[in-house]
């Protein structure tokens, strides 16, 4: 198996283990859009839950530092088009809140429990994203 696929499988296992631990120990779904979205609201009446969510996000943000300390490195290769970044960010923000989840909440957590809503959501966002990438390639004249 190519090394990329092996790293993908192992990395996916870590993601699943993190989500599983959060579920079994804390009773929470490891959906990043749900956690971040709830953090953006005032913590009224549930300060402890708010702090828990903040801790999860701090863990995510600091992960590259720990990965680096362990000797690993990853590049982030992304478009430099500011308009595209703003449009993409807005769409992802609105869409994940409206659709109640993203690749982690619906993909890793929801599909693993065979939730029909999550399977429908994943099929929809993957299908649309594949179409968008195909159209981008067409418009740019087939070049990468």
């Amino acid at each position, binding site marked *: 198996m190519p090394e990329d696929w092996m790293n993908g499988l192992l990395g996916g296992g870590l*993601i699943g283990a993190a989500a599983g631990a959060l579920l079994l120990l804390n009773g929470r779904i490891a959906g990043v859009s749900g956690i971040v979205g709830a953090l953006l609201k005032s913590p009224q009446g549930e300060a402890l839950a708010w702090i828990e969510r903040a801790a999860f996000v701090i863990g995510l943000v600091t992960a590259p530092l720990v990965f680096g300390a362990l000797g690993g490195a990853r590049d982030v290769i992304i478009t430099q088009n500011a308009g595209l970044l703003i449009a993409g960010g807005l769409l992802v923000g609105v869409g994940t809140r*409206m659709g109640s989840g993203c690749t982690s909440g619906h993909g890793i957590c929801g599909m693993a429990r065979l939730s029909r809503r999550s399977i429908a959501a994943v099929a929809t966002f993957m299908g649309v994203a594949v179409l968008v990438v195909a159209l981008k390639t067409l418009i740019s004249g087939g070049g990468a």
Partner: protein
Amino acid sequence: MRTLIALLSGLVFGLGLMLSDMVNPARVLAFLDIFGAWDLTLAFVMAGGLAVSAGAWALAGRRDRAVCGGVLPGKPTGAIDAQLIGGASLFGLGWGLVGVCPGPAITGLLIGGWPIALFVAAMLAGMIAHDALIAPRLARTA
């Protein structure tokens, strides 16, 4: 204790995104590009994540409460409605345009430079806009 578990869960989640290279939008777009030079890595990430996560759900099914207290989330009972499909479509549109979804966006903040920072700022603005402006209207028309 719960806070420490949440911190470690986020950390391990982020390490998984790093190891699998899902923090790299080019890698994600290469998976979505099924008519081009298709890169299957994301499918392996999903397979690994689902296998372990499904085991956790199976264990969760045998108990009522989480180890540190609190009720375990029940099976979702909602219908597949227009909001779910509409939201997933908008998300797919943004994901296909840039190749970034919320987990890798947050994890990439310290290593992704200004493009990831700009994306995250727009994403947070989109979330706030949805919850403050769009959700109340959808609730009224539903």
